């Protein structure tokens, strides 16, 4: 876990390659690569220039407004922010333990979000890489062959996504900007006809999810390069886990394991997270770098998200996903899987679990319950932690005696993966770019590595007309030597502006 290539010894003597923004990743990601005259890499950094202003957006607001307004932090996973905020606000009103119907409705909402988010990533976000390949010609043909055998993929992706969104709509009342979690519980009960409507299609959703696991595994295992080289590096992993060590998305306790799978800590109450995790600021990045305190800032970084969760857990509570988890671990020799591209396989195992969990929850009589709100002893500090689709998400608020939020701290999934994505970019750059002429195809290797983590960088701002990709080659004196632009239609142009 060294920081090789993070900082060059003599950066002033190097020329600079800038990739900005990273396509197929939300927002303003930028990769800078410093090369010497022989095109050898001396420094690689992933810069992320969003995520400013989250805390300021929340501070000064009454706490009960926050679960609704934080949905506007991110248009990709508003439900994740809504639920993390909801849990933090529960603590403010003394409701750490919700009524069974309220907790199960929140869990149903959460797995609905997990299903639609994971479906989007695999079937559409990753499909261009899987369809056209990013490696050698032989590997491309193998991958194309896999996809060609499944022409129905695009349709399934849309319908799985739609199903997850319908789960969200039934619980929140609206497609977007709905209200579900309120302080101490849930806003409305689920109707019988809504439950039955969701149950009608869940069998098909599970079937498609199971097939997606098989396909993601096939794609991963078909390539020696994917399994053993591309973005493969040892790391620690952080996630929530249930009391028996089971995969847990909504609640549970914090668990961290090192690269060999040995526990660093386990069953840590997440409200004590800041005794175990600290954030480091680096002068070259707007985004903080979280690390496990006991491991130190140099070695304490970790990965979160599907790979971390499936690596970290001891079991999955639904049978089909548990069988797939066992296969996943066996493929890694029973140890931890460290390949970045294994994220896709782990993501599909989680999607299968989400689908099975939706069915289980819909068949639980509590899901139609109407006892939805509880209260307890009021507190001035609230902490909510969930597993969002992209990884562990922390919301931490402190309120004053007027119920106004005075201080807020958010650690979002992409921040948790900040160092890991930097490691992936460095590893891939060092393996595939060093000493070679720069091409769009080679640069796409870097983007593929970043996309495996599915970072969400924009948090829901957009405007037509922005350039999705810009590559600049600048010498040590700041002169633009070359430029590669991928415009919004996907067309490439090059040369100086």
């Amino acid at each position, binding site marked *: 876990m060294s920081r090789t290539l993070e900082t060059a010894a003599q950066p002033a003597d190097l020329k600079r390659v800038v990739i900005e923004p990273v*396509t*197929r*990743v*939300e927002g303003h990601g930028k990769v800078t690569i410093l090369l010497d005259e022989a095109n050898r890499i001396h420094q690689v950094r992933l810069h992320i220039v969003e995520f400013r*202003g*989250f805390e*300021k*957006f929340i501070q000064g607001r009454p706490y009960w407004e926050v679960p609704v*307004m934080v949905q*506007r*932090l991110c*248009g*990709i996973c*508003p439900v994740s922010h809504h639920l993390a905020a909801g849990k933090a606000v529960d603590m403010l009103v003394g409701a750490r333990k919700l009524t069974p119907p309220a907790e199960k409705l929140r869990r149903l909402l959460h797995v609905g979000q997990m299903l*639609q988010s994971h479906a*989007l990533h695999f079937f*559409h*976000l*990753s*499909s*261009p890489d899987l369809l056209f390949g990013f490696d050698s010609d032989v590997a491309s043909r193998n991958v194309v062959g896999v996809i060609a055998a499944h022409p129905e993929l*695009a*349709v399934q*992706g*849309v319908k799985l*996504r*739609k199903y997850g*969104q319908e789960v969200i709509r039934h619980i929140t009342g609206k*497609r*977007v*900007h709905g209200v579900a979690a309120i302080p101490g519980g849930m806003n409305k009960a689920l109707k019988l006809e809504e439950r039955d409507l969701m149950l009608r299609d869940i069998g098909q959703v599970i079937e498609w999810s199971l097939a997606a696991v098989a396909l993601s595994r096939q794609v991963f295992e078909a390539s020696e390069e994917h399994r053993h080289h591309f973005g493969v590096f040892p790391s620690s992993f952080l996630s929530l886990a249930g009391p028996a060590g089971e995969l847990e998305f909504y609640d549970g306790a914090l668990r961290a394991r090192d690269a060999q799978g040995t526990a660093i800590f386990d069953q840590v109450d997440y409200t004590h997270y800041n005794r175990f995790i600290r954030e480091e600021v680096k002068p070259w990045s707007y985004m903080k770098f979280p690390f496990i305190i006991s491991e130190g800032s140099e070695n304490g970084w970790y990965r979160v998200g599907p790979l971390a969760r499936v690596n970290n857990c001891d079991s999955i509570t639904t049978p089909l996903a548990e069988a797939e988890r066992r296969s996943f671990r066996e493929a890694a020799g029973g140890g931890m899987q460290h390949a970045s591209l294994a994220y896709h396989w782990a993501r599909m195992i989680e999607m299968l679990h989400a689908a099975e969990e939706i069915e289980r929850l819909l068949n639980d009589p509590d899901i139609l319950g109407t006892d939805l709100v509880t209260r307890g002893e009021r507190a001035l500090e609230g902490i909510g932690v969930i597993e969002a689709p992209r990884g562990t998400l922390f919301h931490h608020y402190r309120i004053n005696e007027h119920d106004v939020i005075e201080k807020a701290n958010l650690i979002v999934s992409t921040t948790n993966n900040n160092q890991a994505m930097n490691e992936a970019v460095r590893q891939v750059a060092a393996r595939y770019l060093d000493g070679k002429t720069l091409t769009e195809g080679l640069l796409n290797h870097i983007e593929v590595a970043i996309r495996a983590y599915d970072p*969400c960088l*924009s*948090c*829901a*701002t*957009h*405007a*037509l*007309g*922005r350039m*999705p*990709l810009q590559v600049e080659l600048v010498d040590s004196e700041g002169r633009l030597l070359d430029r590669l632009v*991928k*415009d*919004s*239609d*996907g067309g490439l142009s090059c040369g100086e502006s």
Partner: protein
Amino acid sequence: MGAVVFGYGNPSRGDDALGPRLLERAAAWLSDRPDLDVATVADFQLQIEHALDLKDRNLALFVDADAACTGAYAFAAVGPARDASYSTHELSPGSVLQVFRTVEGQAPPPAYVLSVRGERFDLGQPLSPPAEAHLEAAWTFLRGLLEDPRPSAWTAKLG
């Protein structure tokens, strides 16, 4: 068969609210005119599932903020396109139409984009004063479209 209007953007990110704000006005205006068959869809951004909102529609309009728009607003036709946005967290209108073609196996309805100039997109900020003015100008134009939701009428308004 009828028209569908998508208004998208983040209501809490300054001028990104132009799309949803215009859609709110359209929905309120349409609620008093039940004879007009026009559906409205609001969201943070376009995604693959919006292709399903095009089903059984004969006309589609995408309303969005646009930092590159030179006037207060611009109106243009759009067709299906597998562009670079195809696999992002946010699709272009052309990509949504392309997904419809893939999923439904048929041509999407005639579609248009109403782009409204936005300048500031910071979290927690209201519409900028210029965007407020652009909103009014765009609403006058949008109302004209809604009054006659036919492809030939909308095509006649292309610049």
